[in-house]
């Protein structure tokens, strides 16, 4: 196998070696790293130490990988409750990068990286691209957003370290994307799958074909096999699903190899468990449940048993590609009410916080999601109450714009607010149906 580990066409980048470790060797590596990270979190993160003490646990009690199942979970609200830096295990002098993503209410969650963390992140992104068949000589158009979002910079440094040519075009501006795709001869593109569908449609309208494009690395939102087939047929490419989340590292937690039958998890850095989301009990490989991840090597922000809320299962059989890394099934749903819109995480509670801030009380509202030309559109329908109703049109329009601005500010994406008459939004058994998802995901 080692003869394949070169970054020339047909081979793998040397960084991909851990993908093929014998399971026993991998397990030994995982246990050593697990013991270190639990010790580190216990010594440096107050919340984790307190929870361990409440359960009478100590780091010395972790003697096998199975012992992980007795440790306390970390959940998304922990990041909010300790906002901004409460879960950091490194002093700021050691932290070289911060990113942020949506929290469940007004404030985002903040994640941190030491130099070593960035090296790990880059290495798993190199392995991600290599598993997609990319190498030195490829031209990668990176259409993930650059900024606080982990997608842009995560893919960028991975592609550079792979030795590929990176086009750091960032998200949006479809016409420029198409021009660059054609003129710069990109062989691979990174973006959300729904944005790729949008690009494909616009390219067809403009009579553009992607002759050199061969691979797409798509993630940051759930998608389906139907969308994959559509993208692959329309763009003439191979579409890979990439998985990641800021809390763990960003993109590069898992990737589909050329078989595209489940996503290999980079288990040497991110240890997976599947649990029953109701009871918290660990389930065997093959059973469907919530994915829980533990970062085995993170310094700045170790995550012990982080509940992703993503529902999937671990595939027990080894993959025909030869990688020994276990695979998860494509993620189709979540165990909470988080929505993913254009790759951005949105909670209905964020929308509520914005409506409340503007109106003083919470009106009845409904979030309507649609996919228009491949792009997600989010509309918030808000019932007009006598308290906010003005018979001057300018005042109502101003209210509508204030609501749009407030939601935009909290959620981070542009939304359309529509004022509707009272009691027009569906209520079932007294509880309003808050989300109408018409995207067929």
């Amino acid at each position, binding site marked *: 196998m080692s003869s394949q580990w070169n970054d020339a066409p047909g081979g793998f980048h040397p960084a991909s070696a851990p993908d093929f470790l014998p399971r026993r060797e991998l397990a030994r590596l995982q246990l050593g790293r697990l013991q270190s990270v639990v010790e580190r979190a216990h010594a440096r993160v107050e919340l984790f130490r307190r929870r361990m003490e409440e359960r009478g646990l100590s780091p010395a009690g972790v003697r096998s990988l199975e012992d992980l199942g007795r440790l306390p979970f970390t959940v998304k609200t922990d990041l909010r409750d300790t906002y901004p830096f409460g879960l950091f295990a490194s002093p700021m002098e050691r932290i070289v990068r911060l990113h942020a993503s949506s929290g469940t209410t007004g404030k985002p969650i903040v994640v941190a990286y030491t130099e070593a963390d960035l090296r790990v992140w880059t290495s798993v992104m190199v392995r991600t691209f290599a598993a997609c068949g990319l190498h030195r000589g490829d031209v990668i158009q990176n259409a993930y957003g650059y900024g606080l979002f982990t997608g842009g910079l995560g893919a960028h440094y991975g592609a550079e370290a792979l030795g590929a040519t990176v086009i750091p075009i960032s998200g949006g501006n479809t016409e420029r994307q198409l021009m660059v795709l054609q003129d710069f001869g990109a062989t691979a593109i990174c973006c959300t799958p729904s944005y790729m569908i949008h690009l494909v449609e616009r390219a067809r309208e403009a009579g553009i074909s992607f002759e050199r494009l061969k691979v797409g690395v798509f993630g940051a939102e759930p998608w389906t096999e139907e969308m994959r087939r559509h993208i692959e047929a329309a763009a003439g490419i191979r579409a890979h699903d990439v998985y990641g989340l800021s809390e763990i590292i960003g993109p590069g937690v898992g990737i589909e190899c050329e078989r595209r039958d489940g996503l290999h998890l980079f288990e040497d850095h991110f240890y997976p468990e599947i649990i029953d989301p109701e009871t918290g009990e660990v389930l065997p490989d093959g059973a469907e449940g919530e994915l829980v991840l533990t970062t085995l090597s993170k310094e700045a922000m170790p995550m012990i048993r982080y509940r992703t809320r993503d529902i999937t299962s671990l595939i027990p059989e080894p993959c025909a590609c030869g990688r020994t890394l276990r695979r998860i099934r494509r993620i189709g749903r979540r165990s909470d009410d988080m929505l993913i819109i254009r790759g951005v995480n949105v909670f209905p509670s964020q929308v509520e916080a914005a409506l409340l801030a503007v109106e003083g009380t919470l009106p009845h509202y409904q979030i309507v999601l649609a996919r228009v030309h491949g792009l997600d559109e989010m509309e918030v329908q808000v019932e*007009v109450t006598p308290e906010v*109703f003005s*018979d*001057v049109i300018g005042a109502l*329009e101003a209210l*509508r714009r204030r609501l749009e601005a407030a939601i935009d500010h909290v959620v981070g994406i542009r939304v359309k607010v529509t*004022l509707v*008459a*009272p009691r027009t939004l569906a209520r079932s058994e007294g509880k309003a149906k808050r989300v109408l998802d018409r995207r067929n995901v």
Partner: protein
Amino acid sequence: MKIRQLSLFLENRPGQLRFPCKVLGDAGIDIVTMSLADTAQFGILRLVVKEWERAKAVLDAAGVVVNVTEVLAVDVPDRPGGLAAVLDAFEQAGVGVEYMYASAARERGLHATLLFRLEDPDRAAKLLEAAGVKLVGPDELFARS
């Protein structure tokens, strides 16, 4: 002198205008005059009725969003330049107009009657009367319908 006007929020879709009109009709309430303002998304129906309290109660009960606002009814001489002269008086008095519409209740041939929503109707009424503008009270307006 002020006239109570009901303002109703309507969505821009079929049946939205008919519904409150039917509610008022079923309650035996006569509409003296009305105006509909619309945007791409929604409309505002403005109504003057004789029994505004009862009208508001039945509309509230039917789930319609209703506001009560005060407007001034102004008689404008029915000749060229008549309206411009009244608006000139508004301007001299420094009275801002939010919106206006023509009343269906009027003395045909003598005057046009216009309904004005003004920034501060009490102050505006005093200033306008001082400027010689003829304001029409509710009783007089309803007697014409």
